């Protein structure tokens, strides 16, 4: 029979088994730390990715919306709220007439009924394929033939019927393509050409969904997405648009909107960093106290190791290895638990946070995992370093007597 060597690792594990309550209590402390580190980091990065995704996706430098509807526009773009608002289509030509405007593309916002597609009402956004520069660049599977009449492009969270369609106002519309995930309101939105939107608008009215009294589809749009011409500043474009529209619209600067969302995100991120830092320090202090008390309780045992021929280095190594196993166990447990929450419930977390939320890619997740693992796994050895040094340097005779 192969005999098991009483290595430092085995002795450490046997000792941890001897005190299961103490071992699990210490593991729990580190697990809380690694849970906060890993879970917090994944959430932090998801929010940062969400903001970055929204910034990329909006594409437009300026968005022109009806007066007083800038917040509603944010609601549609960031949280996917099924809101609609309209203004006179003449605004589009007014904007296009500005010298500083390179492209101006109209959009038309509707909202689906509650019980049809997707379990709840979602935004349906009409765009003009000829001028659009904010929707089509993000289509995952390119459709070579162009978006046909009656076809829909959907955000990543929209669930299709079995036959690859979505139901709006009693009619099924074929899903032509799906957009890349952003973590923002775009994921729960549907996009169609203005022709299809016209049909939807009529169907909606037939179903009794009056989006706004006095609005006619032919003469209305919801927003104008604007790209500023090279050589012009954003301010010059703003001034020109304001003048051309006689100040009767709301002009949203997308960068300001993102900065505003990002500003509140900055607060959340700082809060998360502080919490993670506080947990790390608290875990270090708590473990230092526990290891110090434990080392005092075990003086006789450590003295015995020295009597039997263990060097100071070996004794330190025994103490540090035990602490490392506790840390490693806690780190793996905490990361595992955090992973069971932040990944399956990412959509729910994003909804609750109210800001764009996009999970990091596999490479980023591995980096976060590695960082959390290292920071959690070193906390035990760091906390026990003082005790290990003190015990191993003490005169064995005195350690033995103190331990009796």
């Amino acid at each position, binding site marked *: 029979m192969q*005999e098991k*060597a*009483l*290595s430092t690792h085995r002795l450490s594990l*046997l*000792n941890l*088994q*001897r005190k299961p309550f103490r071992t699990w209590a210490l593991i729990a402390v580190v697990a809380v730390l690694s849970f906060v580190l890993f879970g917090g980091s994944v959430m932090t990065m998801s929010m940062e990715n969400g903001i970055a995704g929204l910034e990329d996706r909006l594409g437009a430098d300026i968005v022109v919306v009806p007066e007083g509807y800038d917040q509603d526009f944010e609601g549609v773009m960031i949280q996917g709220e099924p809101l609609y608002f309209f203004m006179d289509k003449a605004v589009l030509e007014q904007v296009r007439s500005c010298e500083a405007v390179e492209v101006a593309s109209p959009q038309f916002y509707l909202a689906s009924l509650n019980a049809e597609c997707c379990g709840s009402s979602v935004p349906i956004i009409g765009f003009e394929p000829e001028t659009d520069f904010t929707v089509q660049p993000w289509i995952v599977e390119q459709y070579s033939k162009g978006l046909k009449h009656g076809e829909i492009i959907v955000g990543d969270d929209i669930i299709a019927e079995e036959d690859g369609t979505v139901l709006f106002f009693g009619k099924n519309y074929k899903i032509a393509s799906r957009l890349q995930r952003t973590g923002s309101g775009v994921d729960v939105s549907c996009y169609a050409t203005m022709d299809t939107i016209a049909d939807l608008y009529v169907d909606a009215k037939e179903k009794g969904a009056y989006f706004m009294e006095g609005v006619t589809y032919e003469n209305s749009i919801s927003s104008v997405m604007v790209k500023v011409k090279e050589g012009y500043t954003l301010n010059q474009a703003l001034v020109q648009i304001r003048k051309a529209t006689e100040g009767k619209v709301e002009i949203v600067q997308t960068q300001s909107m993102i900065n505003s969302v990002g500003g509140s995100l900055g607060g959340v991120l700082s809060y998360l960093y502080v919490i993670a830092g506080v947990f790390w320090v608290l875990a270090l202090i708590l473990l230092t106290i526990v290891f110090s008390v434990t080392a005092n309780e075990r003086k*006789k*045992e450590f*003295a*015995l*190791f*020295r*009597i*039997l*021929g*263990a*060097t*100071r*280095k*070996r004794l330190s190594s025994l103490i540090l290895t035990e602490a490392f196993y506790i840390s490693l166990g806690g780190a793996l447990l905490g990361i595992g638990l955090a992973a069971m929450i932040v990944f399956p419930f990412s959509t729910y977390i994003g909804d609750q946070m109210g800001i764009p939320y996009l999970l990091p890619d596999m490479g980023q997740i591995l980096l976060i995992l590695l960082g959390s693992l290292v920071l959690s796994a070193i906390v035990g050895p760091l906390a026990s370093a003082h005790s290990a040094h003190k015990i191993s340097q003490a*005169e*064995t*005779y005195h350690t*033995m007597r103190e331990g*009796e």
Partner: protein
Amino acid sequence: MVLEVKGLCKEYMRGSQPFYAVDHVDFSMDKGDFVSIIGRSGSGKSTMLNLIAGLLDPTEGTVTISGQCLSGLDDEALSAVRNTVLGYVPQGQTILSNLNVLDNVRLPFYFSKREGTSTARAMELLEQVGIGHLAESLPKELSGGELRRVSIARALMCSHELLVLDEPTGDLDPETTAEIMELLKSIAEQGTAVLMVTHELDTTTYGNRTYVMDRGRLTPSKIAL
């Protein structure tokens, strides 16, 4: 010569007054010697044993074990002496409760770099001390006498030359005390030098020399046993 102690001193301060816990001790032991040291509590017996085992640094004097002077040895070398030449059985219960009997005995084998395995030697020692059948038992299942036998077997695991014991029968009943003393006597007869500190006069009859320790000074016993 297995052990040579020359001018060994350990000075402590009590208040502002210096005093010698061990005061210029000289003695030596050869293979197979069984030396008993008796003395009252606080006379310096345990301090002297710890100086011999290299667990305390002497104020003056030298300890030489199997030709190796302990003075000036670094921790690595001193630990190697404790592991390979000298077996030390401290006072009281010193068996590790998380290891079974066999692993307790095997433990010192892993404190120095060695080739081979430890189980055969550990089993041989357990048989020698009469508890081979308890190899797989946990310490909590053993009596005081059996635990003391485990300590002795463990002390001999890697060292056969000098066995040092601090009050090996201190907490045992007379019958078990006699059994342990017979065991120590047989170990000495097999060539291991046995140095024992005790305060039980009866146990000194098993050895071939007895010293008295009094206020740090070691003198040959004049008591007729």
